[in-house]
């Protein structure tokens, strides 16, 4: 195995408030990303996937947040880097695409300026060259008439186009790592497919590694090489995509896959939803957080924290996993 591009180890994020117990959002999360690989972080709302990405990008507020562990990119720990060194890296070495493309673009300045800003900042380009390059970038992400579009304002573009622009900006300096935080959630289904296809193509072309954060298993199925499933701030299962979809072992993963509506299901059949909500979680410290919602929960699930194990190339955190041959 080659040396990983990004190595997140024992990452923890807690929100602290005076007079109140810390609220732990991410707890001992470890995963790695190989150069050019597409890695998924999957889980429901509140499982800590966005906080993980913000922690790696160092975009969490400094006050009231405690970050522990490390996130090494090519040997440098991003979490202990100085602010100015981190500013140099952001946009150049690692970049991020956010969920809502409208609010992520500055509404009062033209698209062109927002693309050239990054080019000037990290690639030291002069105005004219940056503008030419910006038009090429917009063309590459499939924006028609890019030269004219440089003078458009964000509100004059459709949601899909704006997300294309965001992607163009994020990839403008050919970063080695791109974090995409639910980049298609705010878009409609047809546009979602286009954007995913575009992302897939671009990262494959440029050799950029992609961390895909999503709650949409369809996105994972079409895109990711390896998938991390998060629950309650911890990774409960990690496996290579085909293996995960073919044989989910953790009851949570199993439940997630089972809860997808199927067209070939007999009419009238109930959807297999996971019962309960994240509010039912137990603290990981002395139990499995998922136990109250788990159909396979044993007595010890509410008493002993399940230890992470490696089973046949698969990372698993469960006392009573779904049998492999089932």
């Amino acid at each position, binding site marked *: 195995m080659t040396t990983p591009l990004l190595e997140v180890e024992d990452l923890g994020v807690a929100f602290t408030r005076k007079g109140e117990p810390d609220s732990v959002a991410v707890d001992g999360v470890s995963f790695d990303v190989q150069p050019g690989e597409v890695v998924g972080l999957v889980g429901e709302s509140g499982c800590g996937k966005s906080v993980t990405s913000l922690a790696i990008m160092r975009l969490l507020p400094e006050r009231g947040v405690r970050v522990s562990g490390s996130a090494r990119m090519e040997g440098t720990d991003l979490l202990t880097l100085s602010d100015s060194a981190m*500013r140099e890296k952001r946009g150049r070495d690692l*970049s991020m695409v*956010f969920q809502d493309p409208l609010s992520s673009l500055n509404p009062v300045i033209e698209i062109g300026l927002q693309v050239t*800003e990054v080019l000037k900042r990290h690639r030291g380009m002069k105005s004219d060259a940056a503008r030419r390059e910006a038009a090429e970038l917009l063309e590459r992400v499939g924006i028609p008439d890019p030269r004219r579009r440089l003078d458009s304002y964000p509100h*004059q573009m459709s949601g899909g186009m704006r997300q294309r622009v965001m992607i163009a900006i994020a990839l403008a300096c050919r970063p080695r790592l791109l974090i995409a935080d639910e980049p298609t959630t705010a878009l409609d289904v047809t546009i979602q497919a286009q954007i995913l296809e575009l992302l897939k193509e671009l990262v494959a072309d440029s050799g950029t590694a992609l961390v895909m954060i999503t709650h949409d298993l369809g996105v994972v199925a079409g895109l990711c090489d390896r998938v991390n499933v998060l629950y309650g701030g911890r990774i409960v299962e990690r496996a290579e995509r085909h293996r995960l979809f073919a044989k989910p072992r953790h009851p949570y993963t199993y439940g997630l896959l089972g809860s997808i509506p199927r067209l070939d299901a007999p009419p009238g059949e109930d959807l297999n939803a996971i019962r309960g909500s994240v509010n039912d979680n137990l603290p990981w410290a002395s139990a499995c957080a998922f136990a109250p919602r788990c159909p396979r929960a044993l007595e010890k699930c509410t008493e002993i924290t399940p230890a992470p194990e490696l089973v046949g190339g698969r990372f698993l955190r469960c006392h009573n996993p779904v049998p492999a041959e089932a």
Partner: protein
Amino acid sequence: MVTTWANRRRTRIDDLATGRSLGADALVRLRRNPVAIVGAVIIALFILVSIFAPWIAPHDASQAFPELQEGLRPDVIPGAQPGFPLGSDQNGRDFFSRMILASRQTLLVGVFATVIGLIFGVLIGVLAGAFGGWVDTLLMRFTDVLLSIPSLLLAISIAALAARPSQTTVIIAVAIVGVPIFARLLRGSMLAQRDSDHVTAATALGVKRRAIVLRHMVPNAIGPVIVQATLTLATAILDAAALSFLGLGDGDPARAEWGLMLANAQAYLDVRPALAFYPAIAIILVALGFTLLGEALREALDPKGRR
């Protein structure tokens, strides 16, 4: 001024087709607002009159005319007569010319005081909003102190500090009153910007702090401040007039200034009320004009109005 729903609908589609910036969009909505039109007309008239005052005024404002002075009695001040449309003032000068020329003083004081207040207010607001922490605390407590004193009282206190009251001291006093208002407003919207998605996105792209503040935060935060400036112009004019009225302005009796004219007219209220009436109406109209335009501007720039 009645716009049918269908018409409005059509223009909106046109807007989308031509593709307008936020500012141009606001301008279109401003033009459709009768309140804005009224305000703009008043202000335009006022500005035109003050620019061309020496040409509009038929006479020298500081010169007393024998034919007017002749008519002056302790209980009579001559009214309109050929060549003097508004008659005489208490000193036998042409009242109409004085009214016209006084508009210059008002515009000058109002604009200078507002602009100076705006500059310092914006400076403080940007510093507080961009740095936060103790810088913010320090600057905001300072503005709190200024804001805790009623604005006119503050202006009077500052103007009274001056050794020799003059136009400049009036401008400075009125400007200082405006500073905390602008500072606080800008700081508030800067803070809102700091947590906005596009600022986070710009940070995630490694944009420098200075560029984030100046390019991504200030332009998005300045809107309400510009609107406030229009409204503050109205208060600045009122405050300046009040200072003159109270004798804290330039006391030179030859100078034509609405607030001062109003103060001097007091003694002749029962002899010739028109001497008080016209300057008062002028002050009210101009202040009203700026207030109307400011309110309309606020509506036009309000993102919730963009539908």
